[in-house]
């Protein structure tokens, strides 16, 4: 499936900003099921310094500095990306989770080593005993890893209420666990913490989701938004995604932007400005199916 994604962010300042620095992760990374066909990030005003690169986790990253006074900043990322459906997943046929934990302790091959990056506490995800107690019932000894992960995904979907505005990025996982409320980022953090507490690797994925308007209504442009889910690692199968907000294994309607240990590693836009008074942030995202560029 090919999508055209438009992600527009507007910073409006009450006073002009003298200088600002930004770090952006707005170009979808490519991976075995996803190809970024075209990506174009535009800025107004034009930055004095712009550097494209890759971060430690292999995500495309843009650094920019704007050195002229500016009352607002517009960042618009337009991308064309091709996402393929995963092969059908038979979660019951995956290896027992406790065997995977053991395997991770032993000498390493390279995918195994890569998975080790995502097994421990990270700045926004602290593992504690409560999380471990929560996850234990999904993972009795010998249960296939992916079956356990699917069950955990379902439990978060069923036992937690999706509610915006009650959490923010600094809300610890244990608070989300206690209040049973949050948004997609919180649910992804929680499931990651739960898997890591068992000694399993889990990584955070930021991206977009194709949304479907209610029956009979036209889809509104810009009404889509960023989404977050996670991925866990299974020997032989590699990384398998789970979306606890929607209780599913993502298919070709989830577009991956970047992955990392937690939200802090993949935040789409970090900024620093001197001056500027207060600022307001306006974000609009539009995801729509597109014809293949060779057909246009």
């Amino acid at each position: 499936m090919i999508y055209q994604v438009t992600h527009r962010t507007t910073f409006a300042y009450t006073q002009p900003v003298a200088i600002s620095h930004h770090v952006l992760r707005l170009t979808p990374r490519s991976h075995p099921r996803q190809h970024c066909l075209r990506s174009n990030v535009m800025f107004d005003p034009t930055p004095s310094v712009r550097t494209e690169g890759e971060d430690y986790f292999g995500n495309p990253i843009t650094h920019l500095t704007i050195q002229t006074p500016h009352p607002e900043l517009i960042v618009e990322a337009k991308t064309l990306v091709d996402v393929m459906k995963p092969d059908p997943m038979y979660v019951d046929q995956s290896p027992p989770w406790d065997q995977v934990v053991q395997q991770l302790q032993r000498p390493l091959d390279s995918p195994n080593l890569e998975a080790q990056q995502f097994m421990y506490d990270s700045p926004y995800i602290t593992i504690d005993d409560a999380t471990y107690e929560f996850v234990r019932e999904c993972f009795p000894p010998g249960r296939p890893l992916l079956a356990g992960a699917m069950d955990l995904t379902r439990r978060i979907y069923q036992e937690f209420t999706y509610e915006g505005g009650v959490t923010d990025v600094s809300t610890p996982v244990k608070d989300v666990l206690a209040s049973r409320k949050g948004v997609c980022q919180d649910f992804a953090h929680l499931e990651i913490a739960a898997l890591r507490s068992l000694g399993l690797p889990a990584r955070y994925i930021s991206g977009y989701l194709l949304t479907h308007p209610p029956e009979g209504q036209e889809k509104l442009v810009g009404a889509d938004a960023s989404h977050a889910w996670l991925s866990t690692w299974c020997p032989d199968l590699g990384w398998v995604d789970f979306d606890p907000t929607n209780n599913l294994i993502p298919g070709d309607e989830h577009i991956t932007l970047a992955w990392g240990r937690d939200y802090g590693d993949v935040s789409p836009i970090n900024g620093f400005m001197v001056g500027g008074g207060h600022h307001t942030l306006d974000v609009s995202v539009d995801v729509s199916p597109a014809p293949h560029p060779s057909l246009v």
Partner: protein
Amino acid sequence: MDSMPASLSPESPDSLLQHTKIYSPQPDTFDELVASDGSVRPHWQELLKGFEGLGVTQRHQAHETAARMLKDDGMTYLASQNGQQSDRPWQLDLFPLLISQEEWQHLEAGLIQRARLLNHILSDLYGPQQLLKNGTLPPAVVFGNPQFLQPCHGIPVAGGTYLHFLAFDVARAPDGNWWVLRDRTEAPTGAGFALENRIIVSRSLPDLFARTHVQRLSSFFQTFSESFLQFSQREDPLAVVLSPGPQNVTYFEHAYLSRYLGYPIVEGSDMTVRDNRLFLKTVDGLKPVDLVLRRVYSDLCDPLELTTESTTGVPGLLQAIRAGHVTMANALGSGLIESEVLLSFLPTLSKFFFGEGLKIPSVATWWCGQANERAYVLDNMDRLLIRRVLTPKRGLTHDRLSSFGPDLNEQDRGALTQAIGRRGHEYVGREIVSPSTTPFWTPDDELKPVPMTVRIYLTATKDGYTVMPGGLARVSVRSDPRGHWHEPGDFSKDTWVKWNGPLDIPAAVTLPHHTLQLRRGGRDLPSRTADNLFWLGRYAERAEGAIRLLRSLVSRMSGEAGIGDDPATLHRLVSLLVMQKHLSPRRAKRAVEGGAGAVEAELRTILFDPDSPDGLATILQNVRRTAELVRHRLSLDTWNILMELTSVPKDWAQTKGQSIDDAIRLLSRMIQHLAALNGMVMENMTRSYAWRFLEMGRRLERVRHLSKLIRHLASRGTPETTGALNLLLELADASITYRTRYKAEAKLAAVLDLLLADDTNPRSIIFQLLTVEAHINALPREETSAALNPAQRITTRGCTDIRLADMMQLAQFTTKTGVRVNLERLLKQLDQHVHQLSDVVAHTFFSHSLAQRISGPQWLEGVP
């Protein structure tokens, strides 16, 4: 102590016996001074003989000298107690630790090997990660370590040197061999204290120092700086000391190093990144920074890419480093290697890199991330120190990080066993060390064996690592010495390496840079320092105004001029105290009603109570605080005057009475200090930007104070008959000028002319404004604008207002209620000018104070 070497036979009444008779080390520990057969170790004999040869008076003098130096140098570290931070004096035991040259060379070789090893490990882990790929190191050691900073991976490091300046904590085992307890690679503290200890001890015990032939420390710092500066490609590089700021526990040391090395001390907000280059904000614009000696944790150095919440870093710094324009000492992320989880892997790693084992072992440590080691720790918990070591640095106290095995109760042991079972990779078990003992010079003038560790410093040079010949020894005089550094009962010591060959005595104390460039005027004045100097000027002047005012009031309360209980006079005096914000209007009213006695009581509180928030102590505290921030810009004499001035009330409270007479003497003494300070500033400071900011602060404050006084004493009523005008002249320090000029009773118009418009009177308002104008003209400005800048516009307006004013008219014209409205208006305008000028100066020159904000990761509403 049966066998006493012949050379130590008592020669003076102050004999060896007196001090060492009771010196009895524990049998199962190693003692630095005394061998197991009770004899004094050979390399100590000369020193001990010298020490014994000191008379009681000399020993007493040594302590006095040291105490005075500690006080004069303001040597402190910040300590938290009951949630409050306060300065604690540095605890120094004058009796040095002595190490022989042979032993030192052994230590040196081992520590150099270790420094090279750590540098190799860092360059692998932040580079190809071969050690992980080939299984030499378990990945948890790196990926589970919060000090592994992913964004720093792959950043090229000049010369492959990650560690420019590092330290090791070493101790000696009971068998006499040395161990390394901890590696300090992030931003090791204490080298400045070690140097200061050396200066104090060598001056307090000069003969002892001379006869012991001690290797010198200062060339180490010179070597560090020379090597560090060579990491820059530029001809005349700018190096800075990056500090988290005065709230940091070791700020004293940051400032000390800054002064000693000649690098400006800066905070994150003093710098900015443009065009992928790091710049220092100075009053003269942006200056490129090439080298940063970092005293800030790595993860706090760039809020854009590392810890977002950090307020101590420089956004964009990582990009500037990636672009190759900045060298950090140490490289960002170097803290990774400090972790105790690595200790047990170092022997293997040493074989891997060098094909040889460690020359000096680490203290025995078991990492619970491995099954066998974990089992060992769980089985032997009651004889180990258990430490949680892979955990974010902040927010956890030592108590939660360390458990002393023998002290654990059943419940704690159970909890710890479970935690290690689940998250073993975060824990290590460490052998409980009983370090060697060394003599501590007790207040009772005895020597007593106490346990010690030593922190030893190394620096990278182009020929490899060099060790500081000495170090910061620390001893614990508590009965239970397993606590941490910086606790009451801990003392530091100077470490003397007894040298046989020639000493490294530096030829010159100044640091040679690449090439000497003649310079005039400190052009690299960081804007924050300018800001602090400006405020030091303001606070010093504010203190002077307050002190002069108080002295006049106090003298009117006493002696022949005593004013008695006349309510009108009392009211006028007290209202001045209200004007100066020493008293609230309510308390003032109550005092007047209570008569002279009540007013005197209030005055006494203002003068002598060190805790009164409105009193003199608070004003002086402001002077002291700002002075401390710019100490590196002040001469030692200026600094000493400031310290004496600000400690007068405190010293007074301890020693002297609080009568009116005492008060007058106290205030007069402070005025003398202020006069000395003014003299220093005028005669001894170079006319640099630093001096101009200090001066501008003083002048502006003087305008403010004087216009307030005139308004208060002369803008209404009949000041000529009430004595208010004489008081005004006195407070403006113009009585004598007036008398010699007019030889008559004070007349308002003439007084106003003298205090407002006479540009030959150095205390007149116009004189201050003209001086400020001259400073502004001399400061750097944007070349492009030819017209007056905003600051010049304000001073010009102020001077013109005064020159155009008709003094007769100002004095005579009153409203029906007796208010001199024109005078009031003029004074009000002047007051506004001061405010505006202060703002304009801040805006133009203090760019570090601009509001900055970070927009870090935030929840953008997701798709349900």
